[in-house]
């Protein structure tokens, strides 16, 4: 296994282990996601709008908000005791460092999404049926893109004033293309439309992932190195 992949996995492993030992961030993010779902249910007039019509947008707004909470955490833990400086002193290529952080964030956001999905089915009375594999696929595609951008912005945001506010302000515009695409695909999946109707959106998502993962990986060194 090439060295940089091994290093990236080691960094991701460190983050995941640290999170599993405390579990505070994961638990709060899960409770937060569940609360957003509940609030959404009361934010609609049940006599005029069926839950299922709103379902794709609710799902993706919940995912986006939960991801924001999760991403804020990614570099705040590194700021404590200047842990990031220690990481930067280690002979790790910055690309591997970014990849490790990205993987850990993906694991974190992915877990939140996996737990949110059954709650969403329960609260919004959606029958997933054979849409489930497709839904997981589009979730993976959309999440990779915005978590990559979120990872680099989170590294910047912790070094600014109003860090908690800076991340959403920077990240939300970047979330818009993947969210539009994901909502379009999800609503077509839930109404059993053929794949040909989603193809364009899926390609947009894949392209977004390739462009932004590569670019963020390249730009990461400019963020962490003096």
């Amino acid at each position, binding site marked *: 296994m090439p060295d940089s992949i091994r290093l990236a996995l080691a960094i991701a492993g460190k983050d995941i282990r640290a999170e599993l030992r405390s579990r505070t961030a994961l638990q709060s993010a899960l409770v937060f996601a569940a609360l957003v779902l509940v609030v959404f249910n009361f934010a609609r007039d049940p006599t005029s709008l069926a839950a299922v019509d709103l379902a794709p947008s609710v799902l993706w707004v919940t995912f986006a908000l939960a991801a924001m909470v999760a991403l804020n955490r990614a570099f705040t833990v590194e700021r404590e005791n200047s842990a990031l400086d220690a990481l930067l002193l280690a002979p790790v290529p910055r690309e591997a460092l970014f990849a490790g952080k990205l993987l850990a964030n993906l694991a974190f956001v992915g877990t939140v999404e996996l737990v949110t999905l059954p709650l969403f089915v329960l609260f919004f009375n959606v029958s997933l049926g054979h849409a489930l594999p497709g839904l997981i696929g589009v979730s993976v595609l959309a999440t990779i893109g915005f978590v990559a951008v979120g990872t680099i912005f989170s590294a910047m945001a912790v070094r600014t004033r109003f860090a908690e506010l*800076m991340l959403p302000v920077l990240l939300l515009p970047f979330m818009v293309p993947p969210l539009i695409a994901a909502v379009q695909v999800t609503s077509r999946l839930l109404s059993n439309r053929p794949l040909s109707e989603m193809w364009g959106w899926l390609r947009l998502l894949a392209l977004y992932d390739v462009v932004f993962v590569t670019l963020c990986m390249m730009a990461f060194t400019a963020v962490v190195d003096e």
Partner: protein
Amino acid sequence: MTDFPPAAKVVKRGLAISTLGLIGLAGVFVLALGFTPVEARQGLAQKIFYLHVPSAWSALLAFSLVGITSALYLWLKDPRLDRFAAASAEVGVVFAAVMLTTGPIWAKPIWGTWWTWDARLTLTLFVFFLFLGYLALRAAVHDAAERARFSAVVGILGMLLVPFVHLSVYLFRTLHPQPIVLKPSAPSLPTSMLTTLLVSTVVFTLLYVGFVTTRYGLTLADEVREDARNAD
């Protein structure tokens, strides 16, 4: 301090170009109201096109240049590039605000609604928000070198967000008028309209250059003052 190009000179030059641009803008109003025909179907509402399209052009120019200078900054680390990117982003936000206000004024009589969640409108709005975020980030980072690096990264990522804006226009069903001038076939509008539009585009470009130069000079003056204070 003496090796700094005098900031006042840059500001003066910027103000001169801006004044020239403002005189040109008055000319555009005369051309648009007196010289061009009234469009058959849209009536007088179409006149706003001579402001809306050029301001969209200037905003696009501003944001593209932020992207390009950001990329160059990470490569060359020249503070002039960072200063330019900051000025261009600020001016771009102003032109985008003009575009986003003239659009609804036209849309109300023609589409029957001030705003619609059409793909191009939505994403232009989000590019506008992106640059508001860019300026917010600049304000929130204290260290000058760090501010320059961070905003360069956001500038580059922002530039790459724009093609995704364009891509989604073709995927989403769109209400926005399709290109009339910049399209593969010849422009489909009368010569007088085209001339006015081109004049207006030149004027708006001039305004962009004037505003950016002024802003650049002011940042320079700020830095000189900051240096003088630190030297004490």
